[in-house]
């Protein structure tokens, strides 16, 4: 069978393997497609190419043609077209593929080049791997294993440079370890648009530094730590806390806004030590806001709620409240709950014949990875049918109904009602059943308090601003005295006279698939790592608050058409 011609594909030969790659791909990326690793430091797929580390040197050649006739010159020994190999190595990152390009990544010349580059890089490297936080995930360590000499021919004194310069509130620089790859400089300039970093001085005196009078303090500064191939830039928060090889990695979702950046949560023995980005080219590329990396501190916060009674006793008390005022119940769900919790909240509201609403939380979007809507899952509530319209920041309707005496019981899930505009007097007038992880004015005023889990202690799904449903997994076990939100909600639904629903996430998804048409074909287990985009057309008329962010453009025409 002859494959149809694809004009944008270029066939190249890497270590004898033919592969067709899109035009404009560089040799490192093309080699990655045939599982050939080209070591590199300065090249980063999401940043511009500078080619200053020289680690990705490869040998390349082009098919030979007769200069006069342009006829291919054949090699009689092999019967194939002769390859004119360039006698010097070329950098793989700065070389884009061209038709017929031949590349060798394992030839003696390439090995010599890599060993030479490694030896020069290690001349002034302090080799303090036992101290360095990057040890275990350090590219220099990895390549030294493959191309290092094992001993040093350098007998002179090594450079001694400052080892703990504070570049900003969250980033510490160790100058000795820096290999001058300039990834951090390019990131600050190209992605964070805060061009504060640069090199000063020459040769072995070269030093990374901030522009005088400025600091690396933008909300994306910790991405420079992630992309630093060595241990030069380290996170001040994570510094010397834990070695990376002890940490368990759990895939999760950033819940600070509706962007839903993909993350990895690193934990050991039930304690989370850091959060780093997970590459998703449709959502966050390889970046993550600094503000998303401190969210784990909520797990061990001092104001965590802990139960003094069993969940069954609490459910019985809540059920008594529900029955004391039939028809006068209200539910306040949360845009920070998972899809599963919102689905159960909808069932609870139906069982109580109560209205359900959300509280919106709007901030300033930064056009990158923090959107204006600080609720990560408003769209999940729309998809599951918990709400029909977008939430308001203040619960004015609920306040009016409480003042009118129409509402006697309020179920608040993860939402502080005083922050949503209810007064202490209004809270005192109703019986509040509160579900939440942390103490606040509402939990203090509540008659029944269910201590529940933070997002790091449970699995679930979130629907981000692109209507992409993504899953987050449980990283650490539940805190003592806290119960899974799903267990509490399922028991409350049953106590309120609703259907018996499973609290187990896999079983619950079977129910969700039957009841929510948009999620009919899904299960929790088969949801892909990069998420799944749902059909947004039923909600196209809603005036969502998000502005433009990375990989997201608000659907302005639809809103304009709806308002016109």
């Amino acid at each position, binding site marked *: 069978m002859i494959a149809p011609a694809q004009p944008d594909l270029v066939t190249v030969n890497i270590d004898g393997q033919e592969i067709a790659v899109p035009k404009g791909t560089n040799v490192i990326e093309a080699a990655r497609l045939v599982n050939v690793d080209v070591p590199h430091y300065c090249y980063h797929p999401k940043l511009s190419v500078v080619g200053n580390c020289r680690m990705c040197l490869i040998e390349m050649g082009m098919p030979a043609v007769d200069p006069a006739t342009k006829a291919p010159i054949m090699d009689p020994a092999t019967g194939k077209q002769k390859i004119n190999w360039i006698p010097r190595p070329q950098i793989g990152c700065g070389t884009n593929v061209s038709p017929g390009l031949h590349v060798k990544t394992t030839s003696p010349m390439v090995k010599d080049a890599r060993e030479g580059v490694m030896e020069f890089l290690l001349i002034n490297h302090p080799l303090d791997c036992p101290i360095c936080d990057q040890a275990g995930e350090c590219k220099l360590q990895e390549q030294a294993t493959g191309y290092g000499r094992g001993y040093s021919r350098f007998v002179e004194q090594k450079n001694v440079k400052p080892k703990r310069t504070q570049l900003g509130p969250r980033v510490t620089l160790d100058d000795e370890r820096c290999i001058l790859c300039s990834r951090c400089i390019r990131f600050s300039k190209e992605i964070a648009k805060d061009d504060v970093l640069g090199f000063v001085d020459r040769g*072995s005196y070269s030093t990374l530094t901030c522009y005088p009078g400025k600091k690396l303090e933008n909300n994306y500064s910790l991405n420079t730590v992630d992309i630093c191939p060595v241990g030069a830039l380290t996170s001040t928060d994570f510094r010397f806390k834990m070695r990376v090889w002890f940490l368990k990695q759990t895939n999760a979702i950033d819940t600070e806004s509706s962007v839903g950046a993909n993350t990895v949560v690193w934990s050991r023995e039930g304690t989370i030590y850091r959060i780093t980005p997970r590459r998703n080219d449709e959502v966050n590329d390889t970046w993550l806001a600094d503000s998303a990396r401190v969210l784990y501190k909520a797990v061990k916060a001092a104001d965590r709620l802990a139960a003094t009674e069993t969940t069954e006793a609490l459910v019985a008390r809540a059920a008594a409240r529900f029955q004391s005022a039939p028809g006068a119940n209200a539910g306040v769900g949360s845009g920070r709950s998972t899809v599963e919790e919102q689905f159960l909240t909808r069932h609870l509201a139906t069982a109580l014949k109560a209205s359900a609403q959300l509280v919106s939380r709007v901030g300033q979007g930064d056009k990158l990875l923090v959107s204006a809507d600080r609720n990560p899952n408003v769209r999940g509530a729309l998809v599951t049918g918990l709400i029909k319209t977008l939430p308001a920041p203040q619960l004015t309707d609920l306040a009016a109904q409480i003042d009118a005496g129409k509402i006697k019981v309020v179920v608040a899930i993860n939402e502080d009602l005083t922050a949503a505009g209810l007064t202490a007097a209004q809270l005192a007038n109703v019986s509040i059943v509160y579900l939440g992880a942390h103490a606040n004015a509402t939990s203090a005023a509540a008659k029944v308090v269910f201590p529940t889990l933070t997002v790091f202690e449970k699995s679930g799904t979130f629907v981000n601003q692109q209507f992409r449903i993504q899953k987050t997994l449980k990283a650490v076990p539940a805190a003592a005295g806290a119960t899974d939100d799903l267990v509490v909600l399922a028991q409350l639904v049953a106590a309120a006279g609703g259907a018996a629903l499973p609290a187990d996430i896999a079983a619950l998804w079977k129910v969700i698939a039957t009841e929510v048409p948009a999620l009919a074909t899904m299960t929790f287990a088969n949801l892909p790592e990069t998420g799944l985009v749902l059909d947004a057309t039923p909600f196209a008329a809603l005036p969502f608050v998000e502005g433009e962010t990375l990989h997201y453009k608000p659907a302005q025409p639809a809103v304009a058409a709806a308002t016109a």
Partner: protein
Amino acid sequence: MAVITVERKPLTFLERTYLPQIAGGLKTTFKHLIAPKKTLEYPEQRPAIPVGYRGVPTLVKDPNGREKCVSCQLCEFVCPPKAIRITAGEIPADQADRAHVEKGPQAFDIDMLRCIYCGLCQEVCPEEAIFLQNQFSMSGYTRAEMVNHKDRLYELGGTLPDAHHKWDKKKAAEEHGNAH
């Protein structure tokens, strides 16, 4: 299955009297009665410890009295019974003789009820800071007593000669002043 009957030789007259055997046994008894003593009056007398003996793991200091451990936690990682527990800490920049080291153990606990004296911690240590030395008897009345904390580990370890003088070299390089 074939059964092989083994012919048992009948005892000779002398063997039937048992006297040669009794005499042989008494010879051994009397030999040891007059031979020099082999047992030691433990604990007053202690045995000579052979080279390479693996006793209680200890932390050692370098000849300048500085702690060598930089809390890289490789011993914690390699320890098969998970007897070692380290909490890392930062060495403040104002400690003149250790400012370059940056990192040291805040807490270093070895649970001797778990330790199997395998010596992997000593083998893996990149700073030559942990050694299984000659101390072989550990006793205590409670489980807590059997956990050696950092102070106790340094007390047991003492100071060992150092072949590398890593931090002295670092200081010399700094004073040499290649970079400003």
